[in-house]
């Protein structure tokens, strides 16, 4: 489970087979130079297409008005970076409030989701247990049929969750796909471990917490990331269920002030300074802040995107 594409054992086996070469098997002939160059060029262009917008956005958020005016819009490089835009945005006001809403929803939601998903997946990891099949089918069916937006809205309304931050969490707290991913991971764990623990007198809860979970860090990390990203990125559910703007999460604020280009004034920022940082910098600072959490956790989780995790899930 360590490798992104192949297991350590596989890689080692391949190395051993071709110890001297640059991992190129003897039978794999040298490819024409232009083919290699074309592939390298393609990958470079693809990577640049991802990186350049980020660099431009970060640089613009740091740039002073002079640079922005000179370039007309985004800047790729600024000689005198300043954090003025971030200070203006974080000193209270709409964006600060939205940021705290997003952080709270993401944190609470991810913990709740992981708890429910682990419990349900573990309950479903014993084929032959009481009601195993009905519960499994019930979970799988939710993947096939989506109840639809209108009935969903009416139910959330009926439950009194409109304009309540819980509406961003409760309807999506359990995702059947994630349950299945986790369940198939649990099923792959050697059964002898749980058997022997049972013989030693451990109950199900004990087995779950002291044997299964410590062995499942990778899948918990990846599923946790999926949930966290979903909560952090939630935009439509907030638009649908939260009529009052003071409860809006960051994504909705981002839409208002960056996508729809509503200008941010001193009212929204509660910054008393007469000399606000350039509008473009403020907008890009909001954008950067909505991306940063993902950039921070991404490298830690990314190494777990291994083949077994997702492929195994597809088998259902």
């Amino acid at each position, binding site marked *: 489970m360590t490798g992104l594409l192949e297991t350590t054992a596989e890689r080692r086996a391949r190395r051993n087979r071709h110890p001297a070469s640059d991992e190129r*098997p003897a039978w794999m002939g040298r490819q024409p130079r232009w083919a290699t160059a074309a592939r390298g060029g393609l990958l470079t262009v693809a990577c640049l297409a991802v990186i350049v917008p980020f660099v431009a956005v970060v640089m613009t958020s740091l740039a002073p008005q002079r640079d922005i005016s000179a370039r007309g819009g985004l800047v790729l490089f600024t000689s005198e970076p300043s954090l003025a835009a971030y200070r203006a945005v974080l000193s209270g006001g709409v964006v600060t409030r939205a940021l705290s809403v997003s952080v709270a929803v993401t944190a609470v939601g991810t913990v709740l989701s992981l708890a429910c998903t682990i419990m349900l997946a573990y309950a479903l990891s014993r084929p032959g*247990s009481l009601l195993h099949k009905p519960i499994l089918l019930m979970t799988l069916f939710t993947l096939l049929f989506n*109840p639809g937006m209108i009935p969903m809205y009416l139910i959330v309304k009926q439950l009194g969750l409109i304009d309540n931050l819980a509406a961003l969490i409760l309807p999506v707290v359990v995702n059947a796909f994630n349950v299945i991913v986790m369940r198939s991971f649990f099923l792959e764990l050697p059964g002898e471990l749980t058997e022997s623990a049972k013989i030693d007198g451990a109950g199900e809860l004990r087995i779950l917490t002291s044997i299964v979970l410590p062995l499942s860090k990778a899948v918990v990390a990846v599923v946790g990331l999926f949930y966290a990203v979903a909560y952090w990125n939630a935009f439509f559910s907030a638009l649908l269920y939260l009529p009052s703007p003071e409860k809006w999460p960051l994504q909705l604020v981002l839409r208002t002030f960056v996508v729809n280009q509503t200008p941010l004034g001193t009212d929204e920022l509660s910054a008393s300074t007469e000399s606000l940082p350039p509008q473009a910098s403020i907008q890009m600072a909001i954008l950067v802040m909505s991306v940063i959490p993902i950039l921070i956790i991404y490298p830690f989780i990314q190494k777990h995107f291994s083949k077994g995790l997702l492929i195994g899930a597809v088998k259902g």
Partner: protein
Amino acid sequence: MSSGTKVRPRAGADPGAPAARETSVRGQLAARWHRDRVLLVLAVPGVIVLVLFHYLPLLGNVIAFQDYQPFLGISGSDFVGLSNFSVIFNGDPEFLNALVNTLIITMVQVLFVFPLPIALALVLNTMLNERAKRLTQSILYLPHFLSWVIVVALFQQMFGNGGMLNEWLRSADLGTFQIIGVPELFKLLITSQVIWKDTGWSTIIFLAALSKVDLNLYEAAAIDRAGPLRQLWHVTLPAIRPVIVLLLILRLGDSLTVGFEQILLQQGPVGAQASEVLDTYVYNNGIIGGNWGVSAAVGLVKGVVGVVLVLGANRLAHAMGERGVYSK
């Protein structure tokens, strides 16, 4: 779908008298309850959530058959039979426009978006340097984790009228290139956004399949003097065909679902004619416009057709000898 393995022999197998069998069935149930009760308790929170926010809304679809009035509620509103569905069957122009837009976008995306990750995965798979390969993958996966709001904002900043590209074109006296806010180019715009966001991430499943290809096959093919293209055609592509079929089935099953959030965010400047799809029609017509019953009817039909499409595509895959989403 894994079938339950029976842990203990069934009571019915015992040649006992009916009364004795009944008690043993009950006793067995009690024993199983005793053994599995902790598992069942663990399942409760998840099951409650699924019932509340999946099965209950499913029942809520009855309003598709009602003249739903918010102040009367589901129980108080009048049933009106199938009249809400007349929008669909009599071909209301707004509905037809949304349907046509949806189908065009699906077609464009199956043709131009679907093959790209396969090609990218094949290129990535030829990278021999493990470190460079991982770094490339990390970069290419990243956009998948950004929200649509962020992606739309980034595209505006890069390609909008005051965006990076046009500022550069202006400074070079090359005129401007307008793609954002132009109705005729809207489908091209959202397709390119989907490509940017998800091509990298979609390679993950093809790369996993590629990593499982037996290297001996390539060696054997090379001995038979198969060049790189022949190896690709006779070894690599057949090996990943089941995955391609599987993903194609899932995509076709989603034919009526195209980037809801993405389109909703960008509808303003281009107008409904160019941008309305089924999901935005349901939202704009139902939640915003208050035509609850009609919107629910459209949503319900869309859901049912989606299920039929998945099952149909899957049956087709079985007929062609593929494994499909689930095995028979």
